[in-house]
């Protein structure tokens, strides 16, 4: 069989794979020769190789067959063939998770790890530790300790590495080997040193003092291994971050001194550590940047890549610091490695001046087709950032982006471009028309449903407000004719917005709607019928409520409420106001700046957060019948960062009640707290109804206790209140090592910082895409207006930010951004007050000596208007 393959190979002249057509069952069949005496090492070796090869190809082995092969393999320990024995170790490691009863080889391995053959000892230790569990570990502890301090580097290294794997499983046992690891750390072998340092750190990482001591010791005595230095740099920078140590700390000096190390690896690690420090000034960056600059001209591609990538990160925060490297970076644009070239160019885009933009863009277009999608996305992001910096260059960028949009590319890439164009349109009104035209052209031939619907939505939002809305109708209606259901439905919604906004287009839109009502898809028909009927009413308020500003409730919340409603049949119609509101898309403003990868996550998580709280609270019997959760605040810290107990509070607002959730963490490992509750003393007529204590608080395991407070019903304007909080609990001292508590404890209390409830806790942010329409919809029935002088505020920006954070409402129409060099600004805010009343605020700001503010509030409820005005004043 094997011979045949070889002959074939020679004929074809190429090395084909002798393992290609391996059958699992045949190989396992062959494994029977393991049982033959005398053992034929060469054949057995070959079969073991085949088994490992199969495992490696992702072949699945059943437990029985794996166990059978494993047991047969154990016989091979009788042979003294070196390679065969080492392949046995490898097989044990590979099979440790598939086969049963692997521990039967323990004694053979123990023998090998203490034997005379150094070649066997390292691998034997590693194999042994793979099959050992916590209880067995005690038995081999003595050998492990010996092995860690062994003279032979491979044995010591193996033991250290294995210990590190074991830390996850049985921290307590491995912790006893600290002294041995300490000894190994002063070994002459560089790998032993590195591994010992790694183990020591993992054993001590919860004890900041010990880590600091360890660092001090090694920084003084010096290390041989460049890997160990890299590790030290990481530990030091982590420690710096945790302690928020200034840049005069000895740790920083150590990192900086590593910039002069003779190993490139260490120098790079140190430079990268400095660059990644959160509060680094340009002066401190300078030495790091200059070593990176040197690396830019290194012959090693990996080093150039590392340097440019790090410089790219510096450029995001301190573009001026990188300017010195511009010349080196320009040389890298022609680098044969496209990844390096792209990074260089995006860095240059960030640091370059306005005049160099055109030239750089030309250079990018010359090679953009050759790089991977990941890097194309990086380029697009750089362009997006550039557009924000130099809004006047938008025409060059727009052209470039539209060319890129026409090229081939994956979904992520196209999405990045579309996002970028959309953000340019939103930022810069001048570019709106060209941008929309490019997008229209793109959806003519777009295979990605998600992007098409997104663009249609954008067209519906921005299109009607352009000077010639009629030209977009054709593009939109083409979609209705040509595309899949989802896109058709989105196109219908976009059309409706044109009809609602532009009276002269309304008749044509109605005709188009009529055609859509005969669509083959029910969603499209439903939408068309719905919009048709709304549009025919010709009422601004209806248009505003049902076409411009959609539902603002959270979708999972709505689903749950509807489900609840169908379970309990009642005469009452379903009340929309009982549905929890969607947390306004807080991330929306940030996405254009943040990179794609990070911006994706919060969008998914943010709406879910409140639903999670809702479920958690609903599970507590005391909190039944409070109605739906209206709003959950961001956590408020009630203690300093480094105290014995860390407490933070989340305020949950309901219709007439509030629940305060205190997340407490005990940072003392010699105490167990029980019956923990937070006593609250309100300053106003708030009434504390219930305390739900946390039964126990173990060391570093957070737990929550709750307080239920009824809001004053007779005085709806009392929205703000200060609570003085005291944490009360029963302390039981316990053994820091075992966690075993003493029998008796004593009561104690701990004073927390005051907790404030403000008007923002009663208002949920809601985004009204079309503020003007919403403003008209509510009407002026309960409108009130007042003028305030903000004497302490110096700029419009500051005033706008203060108002937004104070009221906790959602800025609409991008009115949170104040145009530069202006003396007046209008801020639009939207929200929903507790109980389901819409609130809109229009604040006209004028800058004189201080800032003068005229606030107009509209709401569906008079009280709410009063509350807001009262709290502003």
């Amino acid at each position, binding site marked *: 069989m094997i011979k045949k393959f070889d002959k074939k190979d020679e004929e074809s002249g190429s*090395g084909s*794979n002798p393992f290609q057509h391996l059958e699992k069952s045949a190989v396992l069949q062959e494994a029977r020769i393991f049982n033959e005496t005398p053992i034929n090492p*060469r054949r057995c070796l070959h079969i073991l190789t085949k088994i490992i090869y199969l495992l490696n190809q992702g072949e699945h082995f059943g437990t029985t067959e794996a166990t059978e092969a494993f047991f047969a393999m154990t016989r091979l320990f009788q042979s003294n063939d070196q390679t065969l024995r080492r*392949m046995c170790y490898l097989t044990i490691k590979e099979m440790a998770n598939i086969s049963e009863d692997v521990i039967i080889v323990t004694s053979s391995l123990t023998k090998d790890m203490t034997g005379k053959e150094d070649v066997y000892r390292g691998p034997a230790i590693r194999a042994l530790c793979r099959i050992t569990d916590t209880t067995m570990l005690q038995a081999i502890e003595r050998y492990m300790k010996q092995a860690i301090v062994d003279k032979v580097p491979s044995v010591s290294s193996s033991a250290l590495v294995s210990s590190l794997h074991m830390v996850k499983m049985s921290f307590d046992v491995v912790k006893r080997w600290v002294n041995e690891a300490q000894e190994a750390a002063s070994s002459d072998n560089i790998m032993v040193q590195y591994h010992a340092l*790694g183990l020591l750190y993992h054993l001590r990482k919860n004890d900041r003092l010990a880590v600091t001591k360890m660092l001090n010791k090694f920084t003084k005595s010096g290390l041989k291994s460049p890997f160990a230095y*890299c590790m030290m740099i990481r530990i030091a920078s982590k420690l710096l971050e945790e302690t928020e140590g200034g840049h005069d700390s000895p740790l920083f000096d150590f990192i900086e001194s590593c910039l002069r190390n003779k190993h490139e690896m260490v120098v790079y*690690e140190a430079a990268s550590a400095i660059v990644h420090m959160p509060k680094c000034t340009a002066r401190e960056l300078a030495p790091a940047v200059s070593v990176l600059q040197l690396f830019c001209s290194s012959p090693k591609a990996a080093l150039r890549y590392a340097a440019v990538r790090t410089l790219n990160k510096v450029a995001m925060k301190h573009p001026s610091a990188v300017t010195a490297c511009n010349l080196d970076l320009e040389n890298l644009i022609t680098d044969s490695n496209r990844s390096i070239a792209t990074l260089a160019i995006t860095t240059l885009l960030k640091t370059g001046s306005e005049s160099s933009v055109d030239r750089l863009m030309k250079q990018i277009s010359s090679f953009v087709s050759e790089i991977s999608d*990941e890097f194309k996305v990086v380029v697009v992001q750089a362009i997006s950032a550039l557009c924000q910096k130099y809004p006047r260059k938008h025409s060059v960028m727009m052209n470039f982006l539209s060319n890129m949009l026409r090229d081939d590319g994956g979904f992520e890439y196209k999405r990045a471009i579309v996002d970028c164009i959309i953000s340019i349109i939103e930022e810069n009104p001048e570019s709106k028309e060209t941008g929309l035209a490019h997008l229209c052209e793109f959806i003519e031939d777009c295979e990605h449903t998600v992007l098409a619907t997104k663009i249609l939505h954008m067209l519906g939002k921005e299109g009607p407000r352009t000077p010639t809305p009629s030209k977009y109708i054709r593009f939109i209606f083409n979609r209705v004719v040509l595309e899949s259901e989802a896109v058709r439905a989105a196109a219908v919604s976009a059309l409706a917005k044109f009809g609602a906004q532009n009276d002269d287009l309304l008749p044509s839109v109605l005709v188009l709607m009529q055609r859509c009502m005969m669509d083959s898809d029910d969603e499209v028909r439903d939408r068309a019928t719905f919009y048709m009927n709304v549009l025919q009413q010709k009422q601004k308020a209806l248009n505003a409520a049902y076409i411009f500003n959609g539902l603002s409730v959270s979708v999972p919340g709505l689903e749950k409420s509807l489900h609840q409603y169908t379970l309990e049949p009642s005469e009452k119609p379903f009340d929309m106001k009982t549905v929890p509101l969607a947390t306004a898309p807080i991330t929306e403003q940030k996405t254009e700046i943040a990179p794609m990868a990070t911006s994706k996550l919060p969008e998914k998580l943010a709406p879910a957060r409140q639903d999670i709280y809702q479920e958690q609270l609903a599970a507590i019997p005391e909190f039944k019948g409070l109605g739906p959760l209206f709003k959950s605040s961001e956590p408020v810290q009630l203690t300093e960062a480094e105290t014995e107990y860390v407490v933070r509070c989340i305020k949950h607002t309901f219709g007439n009640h509030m629940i305060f959730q205190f997340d407490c963490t005990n940072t003392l490992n010699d105490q167990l707290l029980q019956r923990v509750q937070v006593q609250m003393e309100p300053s106003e007529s708030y009434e504390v109804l219930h305390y739900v204590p946390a039964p126990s608080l173990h060391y570093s395991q957070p737990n929550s206790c709750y307080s239920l407070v009824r809001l004053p019903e007779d005085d709806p304007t009392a929205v703000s209140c200060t609570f003085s909080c005291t944490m009360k609990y029963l302390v039981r001292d316990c053994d820091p090592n075992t966690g075993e508590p003493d029998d008796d404890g004593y009561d104690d209390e701990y004073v927390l910082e005051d907790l404030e409830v403000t008007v923002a806790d009663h208002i949920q942010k809601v985004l009204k895409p079309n503020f003007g329409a919403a403003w008209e919809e509510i009407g002026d029935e309960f409108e009130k207006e007042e003028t305030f002088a903000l004497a302490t505020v110096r700029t419009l920006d500051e005033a706008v930010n203060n108002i937004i954070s104070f009221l906790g409402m959602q800025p609409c129409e991008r009115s949170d951004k104040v145009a530069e060099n202006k003396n007046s600004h209008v801020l639009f805010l939207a929200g929903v007050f507790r109980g389901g009343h819409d609130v809109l605020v229009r604040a006209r700001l004028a800058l004189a000596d201080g800032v003068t503010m005229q606030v107009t509030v509209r709401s569906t409820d008079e009280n709410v208007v009063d509350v807001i005005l009262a709290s502003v004043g």
Partner: protein
Amino acid sequence: MDTLILEPSLYTVKAVLIMDNDGERLYAKYYDDTYPTVKEQKAFEKNIFNKTHRTDSEIALLEGLTVVYKSNIDLYFYVIGSSHENELMLMSVLNCLFDSLSQMLRKNVEKRALLENMEGLFLAIDEIVDGGLEEQQLSKIEIFCNIINVFIINFDQFKASLLNKSINLYNFYNNIIF
């Protein structure tokens, strides 16, 4: 991009891959759960291979991971780590792997020779990387010599017997070992 501070850890390597010039997996070992199923792994390998086999540029960023690679005749070697990892460390793992293989295969690093010494490869990678930790590194070469010596001794024995029987040396070697 992010102010993430690296958790000091010895877990450097996420995966080691060796592929042939058709992008077929010859060796693949994943040390964490970035790609838990074989299907995802193969898709990832395909992506890597497509992006890298035409260029000889040593390093790339793919699917948010840093990939350092090297090709020789009909073999492609890859070492993969997190994108926050020190690229030079990954490079040193790759170099170590390549150097030890080239020593073992006596500078003849190509697919056929590698497949004939598969167990040597398995043992080498086991020595270099243990569960994602860099192991042995430079010092491993001494250890490695042990395996190589075994091979060379065997080989010499064959040669002696072969000369007597005047059979094609190369063929015989192949048939005996595999």
